[in-house]
């Protein structure tokens, strides 16, 4: 009788061991399948989300610009999508909606709100908009005297996997602000072609006569590969643009705001010049005297400046170049500073990142598409992973 009990005990132990082993081994046998299933599920959801982001206008259809000069309220957006308004073409995005993704002084769409509108509970995602190709640029300015500036610039063009892009045409537009009887901004463009290693470089000397002085200098690169183009803005380091004003364009309106909590943000600054530049023509939108209350911004009652320029959004403005008369952090009193706007993408090597890419090595799915924003080609990438 005790022997039988031992046998049954042994049977229970052995069966228990077999059960535990089965529970451990069987899932691992099917791990690859489960992994593929998981990946495929993520990919399907990412594809669906990307389709909504690129092809849907959202609701209201003009949600990116509906607030006009007022602060944007994300709760007014009932459905999300970046497609341009009333355009039958696919993959064309609305610049006003894209601007609501980045840090926008007039309000932006929060990550949680977008996630809710896309119905992605249980998942996290990131959206990156970047130029078709990578442009590494550098600019150095040497000033032998106040009236002369020697500008050296380099631009290396490559794919994102590091492969160089030869024969890319690099247009470098040098813009410099001149302190004279008026405060004007001038520009000249130099064309280069990348060599077999994707490198291009050039130099240019600009000078002014009389008592005029060259102040801020900025270089804007436009790179085209087989006429598919991208713009990268390079700034001289004497000024940090965001210290002076945050630029926002909503439809035909330009809105500038003084950034809070910046050194010197209490100082007055004047908009002396606004130009619309598309690498072929330059149109002056505004000329200010740079004194008195003429287009002045100041902390307090004048911390927002806005003006409407009818036809601005439909005229494909390229870039907008703002010249300010402002304080400088260093010695020398008031100086001139150039800012380029309005789109957030241009302030960061042309890349707009929305939410961080996951740092863990867990499964994620990525969908990538070519899109067009303001006539320029970009790559939109949506990456999705489980929370």
């Amino acid at each position: 009788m005790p022997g039988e009990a031992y046998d049954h005990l042994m049977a229970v132990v052995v069966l228990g061991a077999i059960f535990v082993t089965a529970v451990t081994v069987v899932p691992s046998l099917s791990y690859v399948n489960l992994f593929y299933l998981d990946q495929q599920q993520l990919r399907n959801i990412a594809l669906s989300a990307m389709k909504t982001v690129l092809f849907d206008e959202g609701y209201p259809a003009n949600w990116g610009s509906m607030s006009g000069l007022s602060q944007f309220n994300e709760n007014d957006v009932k459905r999300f999508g970046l497609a341009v308004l009333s355009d039958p073409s696919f993959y064309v995005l609305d610049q006003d909606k894209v601007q609501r993704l980045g840090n926008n002084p007039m309000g932006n769409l929060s990550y949680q709100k977008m996630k809710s509108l896309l119905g992605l509970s249980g998942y996290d995602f990131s959206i990156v908009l970047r130029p078709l190709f990578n442009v590494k640029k550098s600019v150095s300015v040497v000033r032998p005297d106040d009236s002369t500036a020697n500008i050296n610039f380099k631009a290396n063009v490559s794919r994102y996997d590091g492969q160089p892009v030869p024969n890319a045409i690099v247009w470098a537009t040098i813009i410099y602000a001149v302190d004279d009887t008026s405060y004007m901004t001038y520009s000249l463009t130099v064309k280069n072609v990348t060599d077999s290693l994707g490198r291009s470089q050039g130099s240019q000397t600009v000078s002014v006569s009389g008592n005029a002085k060259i102040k801020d200098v900025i270089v804007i690169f436009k790179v085209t590969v087989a006429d598919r183009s991208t713009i990268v803005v390079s700034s001289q380091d004497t000024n940090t643009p965001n210290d002076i004003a945050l630029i926002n364009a909503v439809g035909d309106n330009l809105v500038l705001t003084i950034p809070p909590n910046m050194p010197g943000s209490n100082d007055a600054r004047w908009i002396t010049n606004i130009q619309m530049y598309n690498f072929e023509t330059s149109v002056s939108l505004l000329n200010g005297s740079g004194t008195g209350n003429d287009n002045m911004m100041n902390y307090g009652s004048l911390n927002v400046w806005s003006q409407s320029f009818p036809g601005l959004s439909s005229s494909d403005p390229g870039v907008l170049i703002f010249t300010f008369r402002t304080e400088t952090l260093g010695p020398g009193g008031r100086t001139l500073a150039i800012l380029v706007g309005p789109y957030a993408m241009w302030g960061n090597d042309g890349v707009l990142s929305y939410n961080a890419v996951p740092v863990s090595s867990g499964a994620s799915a990525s969908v990538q598409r070519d899109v067009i924003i303001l006539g320029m080609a970009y790559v939109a990438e949506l990456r999705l992973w489980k929370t």
Partner: protein
Amino acid sequence: MRKAWSANSSKGQMRVIEAVMAAIIVITAVAFLYAFAATPSSQTYETGELEKIGHNVLHDIDEQRLLTRYVYNSEWANITAALIVSVPNDVYFNLTIYDVNGNSIGHPLIQYGSSQVFADSKAVASVTYIVSGYQTNYNPRILVLKLVRG
């Protein structure tokens, strides 16, 4: 009494062996089923994704009014460069252009990636895109873009 106990012991041992064998059979069956109940090959999905990429790239180049210019002005280097910078980094392509009768128009090789990449790939996507003509000339061309991942 000893005989009966011995018989019970043998029965017990047999039950253990039966249980072990049954468990082995069940586990083997489950493992066998899992091994064969594979997820549908991802090649189907992969081809679909590559087709979407191919159509997206051709459409965007066309949207910028460059595709017809490349094709009708025989800008083969430009169309190759435009496609290279437009497709994702791990995607290789081969483009062939036909007239409406299905005859190749005799352009140089428009390809990114070696022929081996195409030969070795298990999933090749093919996208057909038609352009009707350039400016006012109606002269359709059929673009067949083949894509693989490297």
